[in-house]
């Protein structure tokens, strides 16, 4: 028994060698960008004068601290995604940041200096309404949280107010009836007094009222076009005091709901008596409540002004107004945060943080200088593609030589010579540049990537990453440096839209520009639109996409190309009619010829229906098969085919006895994963069906009992790897299905789904995986020679590179001579996780949502992009770098040995001559 174990150990050590990132490789070809999402609340650290901290709470349930000088993260706390982690409010006082989380579930206090938690308290049940600090005698000691318990239908909006006394006021509104004011004592939370005021015009206290001056509630009403003032703390029966806007010479733009903006600089003091009234989308007026508490004086009119905000430092309060410089700006900034501070000469300085509609966060310093901008839209990447960069002029010249038809011997020689001269020129220019840069001081040399200098490198390792975000903003990112080269904001994208990015033409067809098409589909209506653009420059293409009046069910990219080398995209609508894009005559003719061999499938997961269609010559379709998985028992969770750009190098596996086990390589195979509708741990199951997409034949069916999702799976080559939760043993398990034709191939030249009489042999093995996973993908290389690894995203943010060798259903339980010769690892139930296999070492990627793999020009190298909250780009070498010299190749040693040998030969030759001469003399 000792021998197998020792062998196992050896395997292990070999993998360690092949997998880990070396120390000097850190940051060499990988990069990470961290994002937080759209800002909901922002606070500047006003604790000390020179502080450069900025605190943000975002819609991705993240509480983060930024360096306001650089825009880099100090720390970030990622809470659970979804409604349980939503941040309802963020209040900052001194070094304490208070947060209400999860709709009033928890109250947290953070130490903003260290980034640690001070304490966490569970609040009573009820939905969160409002919160504010409560202060007593200039010290902030309490926080008031208002929650709604049970099903209360009377109050619709709330306001909590504390003006520095020992009382807290809660204002509630019964829409179009009256307003109730309840005062609570700070000591014991008892109700002190309670009053009601008639307000038939008031529907919401949150949206139309603010507290101004010494406890005066100021409301604005659209119907009567008037301001209403009400002293909250008045002893006797209070009454709203109406002030008509007309009397102040103010006019509301038609159809606009006026908004009030006020500020309470310190919880221990009353709000300031100045406030803003927004009268139109770009019209604000600064007003002041006079000391009598009833009359209002207009101070200044701001038009145009998009956003207004107050900020206080010491005794001074600054009103910030953002005015647009030119009308062309298409992104509207919905939020503005201002931080004012006193300069040394006692004048007021300011810093501004602007959140725009496209989720960009911009930090501006005093004279209107943009210090940094963060593209927070990248916190929610939906889909991405990697596109080859275009060739440079010289490269294109060389390529063109091979592409053109031969026109005689002499012109060919001339052309060859001329291209060689061009190459020489380019090389000399490169050398000169190197020499020139070497003379410069080190810090000045900058290798900035701009869109003009973009060109493919010799191994095609640098590519353009086209990323589509949920907010509808598209990005073009250079994969080498991570710098954003272009961005394009698509307006009018519904928040629940689904995207599909298709590369219709790559950069290989010079002079035709590369072309990407983004299919944007509204999830509710199914209506879709196309956005056609150039992935290198981000510009919208002049090609007009077809109008799509009907909901789209399926889209498929055909290998058919039109005369401009663009692949044809077929869109199937809900009447099973097909639209082709591009739809030139040439394309339609080709489609007619090929129609009988174009098949596609549709999934109706709500009906448990999987059906296959064939294209007819007139671009209508006919249904040829249907598989029904009854929805009462199970529901279809995911369907996945193989990646079209995947290559399989070897047709089979050589076994220990020198026979060949041929793989079942069906390109039309679909893996359908179902989950049981019964969630009981004893009866839950996960099903995997392998269905032929052309014939509808079920090739294999595997059911995992006592299992439930979420199921993550990868379908590639002749295998399917899936992961599920074992409800009985409470652990995650990996299962691998591998399909083989057997030791003989039925038809080795061509694969046809219609002519395969024998079902494949299916092997399956299951392993325990000691961690939950969030996503899974397989590496991909140019020719498929390199062994495959699975890239597994873990909840800790690590990306594990797991050799496919560990997920091989032929791993033997008992080691034999044959299995040893095949290099099969003996079966072990538990899969190892080693930190050396983490391809992103300590650069964790929070909430990994997807891993994208792309082949590079080198067979050994696969490009990997993991995206989620963060974006991480790296390269992996699943079988080591076998086709290039290693990074640590020792040129010095090799050359010194060579020189030493050379000199040794010279010397020994000389010595031998001398010796011969001496002997001759003797």
């Amino acid at each position, binding site marked *: 028994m000792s021998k197998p174990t020792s062998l196992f150990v050896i395997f292990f050590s070999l993998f360690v060698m092949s997998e880990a990132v070396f*120390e000097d490789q850190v940051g060499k070809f990988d990069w990470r960008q961290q994002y937080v999402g759209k800002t909901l609340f922002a606070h500047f650290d006003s604790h000390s004068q020179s502080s450069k901290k900025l605190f943000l709470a975002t819609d991705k349930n993240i509480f983060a601290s930024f360096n306001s000088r650089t825009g880099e993260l100090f720390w970030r706390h*990622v809470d659970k995604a979804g409604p349980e982690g939503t941040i309802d409010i963020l209040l900052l006082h001194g070094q304490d940041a208070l947060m209400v989380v999860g709709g009033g579930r928890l109250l947290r206090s953070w130490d903003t200096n260290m980034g*640690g*938690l*001070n304490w966490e308290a569970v609040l009573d049940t009820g939905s969160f309404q409002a919160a504010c600090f409560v202060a007593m005698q200039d010290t902030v000691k309490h926080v*008031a949280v208002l929650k709604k318990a049970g099903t209360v239908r009377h109050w619709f909006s709330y306001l909590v107010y504390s003006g520095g006394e020992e009382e807290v006021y809660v204002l509630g509104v019964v829409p179009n009836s009256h307003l109730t004011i309840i005062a609570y004592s700070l000591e014991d*939370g008892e109700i002190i007094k309670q009053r009601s005021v008639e307000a038939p015009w008031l529907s919401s206290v949150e949206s139309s009222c603010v507290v101004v001056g010494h406890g005066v509630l100021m409301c604005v009403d659209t119907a009567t076009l008037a301001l209403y003032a009400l002293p909250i703390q008045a002893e006797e029966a209070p009454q709203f005091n109406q002030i008509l806007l007309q009397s102040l010479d103010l006019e509301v733009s038609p159809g606009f709901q006026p908004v009030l903006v006020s500020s309470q600089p310190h919880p221990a003091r009353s709000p300031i008596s100045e406030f803003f009234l927004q009268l139109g989308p770009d019209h604000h007026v600064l007003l002041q409540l006079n000391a009598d508490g009833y009359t209002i004086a207009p101070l200044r009119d701001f038009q145009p002004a998009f956003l207004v905000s107050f900020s206080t430092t010491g005794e001074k309060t600054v009103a910030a107004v953002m005015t647009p410089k030119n009308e062309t700006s298409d992104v509207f900034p919905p939020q503005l945060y201002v931080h004012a501070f006193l300069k040394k000469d006692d004048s007021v300085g300011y810093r501004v943080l602007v959140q725009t509609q496209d989720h960009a966060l911009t930090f501006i310093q005093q004279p209107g200088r943009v210090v940094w901008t963060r593209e927070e839209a990248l916190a929610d990447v939906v889909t991405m593609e990697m596109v080859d960069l275009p060739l440079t002029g010289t490269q294109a010249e060389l390529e063109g030589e091979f592409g053109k038809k031969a026109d005689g011997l002499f012109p060919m020689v001339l052309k060859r010579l001329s291209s060689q001269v061009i190459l020489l020129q380019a090389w000399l220019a490169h050398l000169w540049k190197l020499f020139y840069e070497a003379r410069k001081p080190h810090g000045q040399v900058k290798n900035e990537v701009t869109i003009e200098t973009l060109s493919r490198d010799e191994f095609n390792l640098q590519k353009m990453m086209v990323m589509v975000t949920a907010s509808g903003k598209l990005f073009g990112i250079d994969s080498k440096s991570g710098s954003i080269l272009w961005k394009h904001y698509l307006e009018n994208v519904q928040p629940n839209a689904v995207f599909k990015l298709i590369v219709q033409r790559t950069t290989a067809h010079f002079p035709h520009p590369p072309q990407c098409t983004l299919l944007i589909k509204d999830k509710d209506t199914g209506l879709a639109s196309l956005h056609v653009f150039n992935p290198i420059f981000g510009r919208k293409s002049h090609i007009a996409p077809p109008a799509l009046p009907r909901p789209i069910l399926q889209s498929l990219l055909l290998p058919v190309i039109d005369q401009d080398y663009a692949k044809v995209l077929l869109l199937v609508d809900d009447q099973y009619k097909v639209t082709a894009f591009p739809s030139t005559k040439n394309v339609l003719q080709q489609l007619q010829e090929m129609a009988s061999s174009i098949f596609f499938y549709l999934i109706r997961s709500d009906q448990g229906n999987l059906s296959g269609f064939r294209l007819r010559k007139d671009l209508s379709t006919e249904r040829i098969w249907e598989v029904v998985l009854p929805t009462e028992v199970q529901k279809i969770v995911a369907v996945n085919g193989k990646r079209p750009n995947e290559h399989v190098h070897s047709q089979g596996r050589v076994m220990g006895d020198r026979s060949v086990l041929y793989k079942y390589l069906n390109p039309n195979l679909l893996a359908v994963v179902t989950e049981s509708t019964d969630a009981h741990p004893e009866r839950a199951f996960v099903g995997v069906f392998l269905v032929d997409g052309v014939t509808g034949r079920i090739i294999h069916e595997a059911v995992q009992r006592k299992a439930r999702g979420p199921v993550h799976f990868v379908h590639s080559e002749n295998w399917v790897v899936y992961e599920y939760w074992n409800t009985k043993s409470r652990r995650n398990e990996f299962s691998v299905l591998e399909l083989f034709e057997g030791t003989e191939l039925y038809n080795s030249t061509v694969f046809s789904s219609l002519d395969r009489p024998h079902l494949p042999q299916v092997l399956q093995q299951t392993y325990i995986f000691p961690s939950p996973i969030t996503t899974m993908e397989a590496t991909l290389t140019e020719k498929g020679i390199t062994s495959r690894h699975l890239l597994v995203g873990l909840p800790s943010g690590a990306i594990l590179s797991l050799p496919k060798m560990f997920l091989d259903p032929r791993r033997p339980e008992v080691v034999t001579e044959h299995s040893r010769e095949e290099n099969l690892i003996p079966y072990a139930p538990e899969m190892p996780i080693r930190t050396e296999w983490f391809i992103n070492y*300590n650069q964790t990627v929070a909430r990994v949502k997807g891993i994208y793999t792309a082949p590079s020009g080198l067979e050994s190298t696969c490009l990997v992009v993991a995206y989620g909250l963060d974006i991480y780009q790296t390269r992996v070498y699943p079988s080591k770098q076998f086709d290039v010299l290693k990074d640590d190749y020792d040129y010095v040693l090799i050359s010194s040995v060579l020189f030493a040998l050379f000199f040794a030969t010279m010397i020994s030759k000389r010595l031998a001559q001398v010796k011969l001469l001496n002997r001759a003399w003797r």
Partner: protein
Amino acid sequence: MWLHVRLSEVCLFLQAMFILACCFSDMESGPIATSGSVQPNGDRFKIEGRAIVPGVKTQDWISSARVTVEGEEYIGFLGTDGSFVVNDVPSGSYVVEVISPGYKFGAVRVDITSKGKMRARLVNFIKTSEVIRQPYPLQLRSSGPRTYLMKRETWGWTDFLMNPMVMMMVLPLLIIVLLPKVVNTNDPEMRKEMEQSMNMLNPNPELPDVSEFMTKLFSGSKSSSSKAIGGSKASGRPAVKRRWCQNITCTSGLRNYCNWSCHGNYNAIFKKSFFIRLYNCFLSRVFFPSSEIQVCK
């Protein structure tokens, strides 16, 4: 009147929860409102514990760490002193982990009964029902920084010289060349001394000759050779080792120096563990060329 009725109704129905909590002045005591493991909202419980990284200040690692319960099902954050509470967890069995990109922490399985009784035990995915108790509230000690990166194997003269194969070649060569010059073998006193040392080497003359024994062993089955690896790995018994090394060197065609090294100044040289290791390496290299890395280390 109507107003009054309406108001009381408001009072009754609108239990607008009002929580006044949390003193800002003394942070350590935390909120007073909740205490005990059973929380106000019935069947929800909390998992408590503390994470420690020995020798590292808490502020250096807590901001990047968090506590996950069963993946990301429930999440807790670390307090400024390394303690943590995960609130709102229903009864069940969970794997609790402290996740930090810098430091390793072990996972613990926490079982919560429907009555709120807590138990912590070691995680065992294979024997899921096995119970090895752990302290509760959890005490999670980091076992050190995580190692993600490999060190490059650098080439240096010392590495080359210290390579076992090179040592095997060079050292005996040196000994052969140098020793006859240092030790005068014609001196009768010296000869006597050497004979004595040879006697010392073979304390028990009744024992069969080791080399003979070994040749028998190796001419036998293959399984015995695998045992040889096991033997060479166990460094506890020097006596056994001596025989091994003696024998291997003698059978591997280096008879000349070997004989000398075994019979001559044996004790002086081979007492040093380094040489034992060296010979072990040699041994494994001869018989298991593929396993060099592992065994040598």
